[in-house]
């Protein structure tokens, strides 16, 4: 069984194929309206999600499939049923693929394995969120008029990923994805929000401050800045003193955004904490690709289904 669980394990060619598929679908969605005909998809979301879940639902619909949707917390799991039992129970209603979001990294691996179903990761713990990386790269390619059919399309582009790298599956998938596509990636975070050892990741630059001359220079050289959501619900321990201090040193404030090249673009996977990691004015500026990201989410997820079912057919 081949699944879309990580960007890390995709080859550069496979990654570009997914992106290429995303653009084909976006250009001519009608052509794919029967792709999932007769297929029932289990959308299993044990952790909260708005846009990912809606875009997966939309993707299934546009591909002509049906879905059963499960949201954890409200049902048997709250009564103490194990994850494996819950999924196996739901599968008795019939499912041809599993899309799962879960707060535990790797949960999708063993569930997909145990259930012997093709699986698409909709976010697992702090591990990966591959469809987010697809839609982010798609949005950047569109912006920069690049084609996924050419090798290393992001060669020469400087991309910053700023914020809570430690807890971010979006960051992990994007580090793998953007570097595979040729970008120079710089991670920006206080040491408390940066994994201590990045040696197994592809080569990236790491800086801890944006307010220093070096930090400002890096910001001024960026072609894209990806702001991560500050995952306030995950901050079980104090990673920084206050959100005010966080905004001051790592937020994309109006003043800091002025340092960016006029051509630079701003991404955020949402949901945003406006006024913390990103100022409202910046969110709504012309440089922001944030709403485009949401739109592309549907195409990228359609491509994920198409690609995974092709692998397994």
């Amino acid at each position, binding site marked *: 069984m081949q699944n879309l669980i990580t960007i890390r394990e995709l080859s550069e060619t496979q990654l570009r194929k997914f992106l290429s598929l995303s653009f084909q679908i976006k250009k001519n969605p009608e052509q794919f309206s029967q792709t999932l005909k007769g297929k029932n998809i289990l959308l299993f979301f044990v952790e909260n999600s708005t846009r990912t879940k809606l875009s997966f639902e939309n993707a299934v619909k546009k591909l002509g499939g049906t879905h059963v949707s499960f949201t954890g917390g409200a049902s048997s799991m709250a009564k103490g049923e194990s*994850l*494996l039992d819950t999924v196996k129970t739901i599968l008795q209603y019939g499912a041809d693929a599993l899309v799962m979001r879960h707060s535990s*990294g790797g*949960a999708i691996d063993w569930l997909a394995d145990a259930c012997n179903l093709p699986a698409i990761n909709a976010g*697992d713990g*702090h591990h990966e969120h591959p469809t987010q990386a697809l839609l982010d790269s798609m949005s950047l390619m569109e912006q920069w008029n690049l084609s996924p059919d050419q090798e290393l399309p992001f060669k020469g582009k400087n991309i910053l990923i700023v914020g809570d790298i430690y807890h971010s599956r979006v960051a992990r998938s994007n580090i793998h994805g953007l570097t595979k596509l040729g970008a120079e990636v710089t991670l920006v975070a206080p040491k408390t929000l940066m994994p*201590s*050892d990045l040696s197994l990741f592809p080569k990236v630059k790491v800086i801890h401050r944006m307010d220093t001359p070096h930090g400002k220079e890096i910001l001024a050289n960026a072609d894209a800045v990806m702001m991560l959501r500050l995952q306030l619900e995950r901050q079980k321990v104090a990673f920084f003193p206050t959100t005010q201090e966080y905004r001051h040193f790592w937020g994309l404030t109006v003043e800091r955004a002025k340092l960016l090249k006029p051509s630079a673009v701003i991404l955020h996977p949402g949901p945003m904490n406006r006024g913390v990691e990103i100022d409202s004015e910046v969110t709504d500026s012309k440089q922001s690709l944030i709403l485009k990201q949401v739109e592309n989410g549907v195409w990228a997820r359609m491509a994920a289904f198409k690609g995974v079912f092709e692998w397994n057919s």
Partner: protein
Amino acid sequence: MELVIRGGRVVSPDQKIDALKDILIANGKIKAIDQPGSFDSLSGVKKIDASQKIITPGFFDVHVHLREPGLEYKETIASGTRAAVLGGFTSVACMANTLPVNDSAITTRYILEKARDAGQSRVFPIGAVTKGLKGEELADIGFMVEAGVRAISDDGMPIMNSALMRKAMEYAATFDIPIISHAEDLNLSKDAPMNEGAVSALLGYRGNPAASEEIMVAREIALARLTGARVHIAHISTIEGVNLVRRAKEAGLNITAEVTPHHLLMSDQLLMKCDHGCNHRHSRADYKMAPPLRSAEHQEVLLEALNSGVIDIIASDHAPHGCMDKETEFELAANGILGLQTTVPLMLGLVQHKKLSLSRMIQALSSAPAKLFSHNAALSVGNDADITILDLEQKWKLTPEMLASKSSNSPFLGREFQGAVMATIVGGDVKWSTEK
């Protein structure tokens, strides 16, 4: 009934014995040890042919979870001690984290009674340091010593309060028993299902840093210096932990340490692929234990320290868990793996590959653990006949059906071994043998 073990090579490093000898056993005791053939003329005795085999003092596993009372779905004293003798252990010491916790003489006596009924390996119950392993007040240590406890430990529920640990050490020293420490700063390792390092960063898990162990090893040594207590560091897993133990020994403190086969043989890299060539489907949770598998550089230092004697003991940390304890989200999965039936064969593998000397292996599995529990395990006339016989050549593969344990949470299922336990003799009784 008398028993003769003939033709084998007897290796008991602490007694400076390494020679072909025959052993005569009568009434559960060693009656004579003599030149090969010495007892051939005896009739009406049972004979074990040990030619080409290694005869050692009975192996003693100081770190085992037998789960009874209270968690019999994972293991019972009967199933666990059966696994022990199949794995070459004539004695095991069982941790106190049962239900109820072994923090009273009543529970200690219950365990000993069950062990007698099972009639497999000897069992040395380890008493809790604190009531209910809660780290709040001392358990009935004296009463438990009277009932048969020879060491105390809160194991996986380490005592964070240094003042309480100091008192526990002083009290343990009063009864001349060691205190066993699972060295882990729980604040540093909170919510961390694996080692902190490159792999945890890649997989997106919170990491348990080596510092969590180092800090507590350093604290235990400081308290041992303060109190004069005997302190044993369980399952040491870090370079700096080893360095601290070495320095403490050099300073003359009464510190010992154990290492597990899994920390010697595996690194956290395995959590990425969940496969180490065993040809068996393993899940990530099969590699989850506390302390966690560390990065590869720690392995080398552990092996070196075992060879040099800085690490005294090899212990399995046999930790059976039912499938529902493991088949769950990685962060929620229970810590621990089986060890009783794999420890000796895995160590024989290291001997085979010349990474561990046979004599160090035997010391670390027999005399050193016996000493920790004030048990006389030497192969001497008049001693209990607790003997392990090893076959260095036998090739075999571990399958689930071979496990005597009630659980099967072993990352070594499917592994091919060279070297096996040929027989385990407890008090003159052949509890298990590949012959017959």
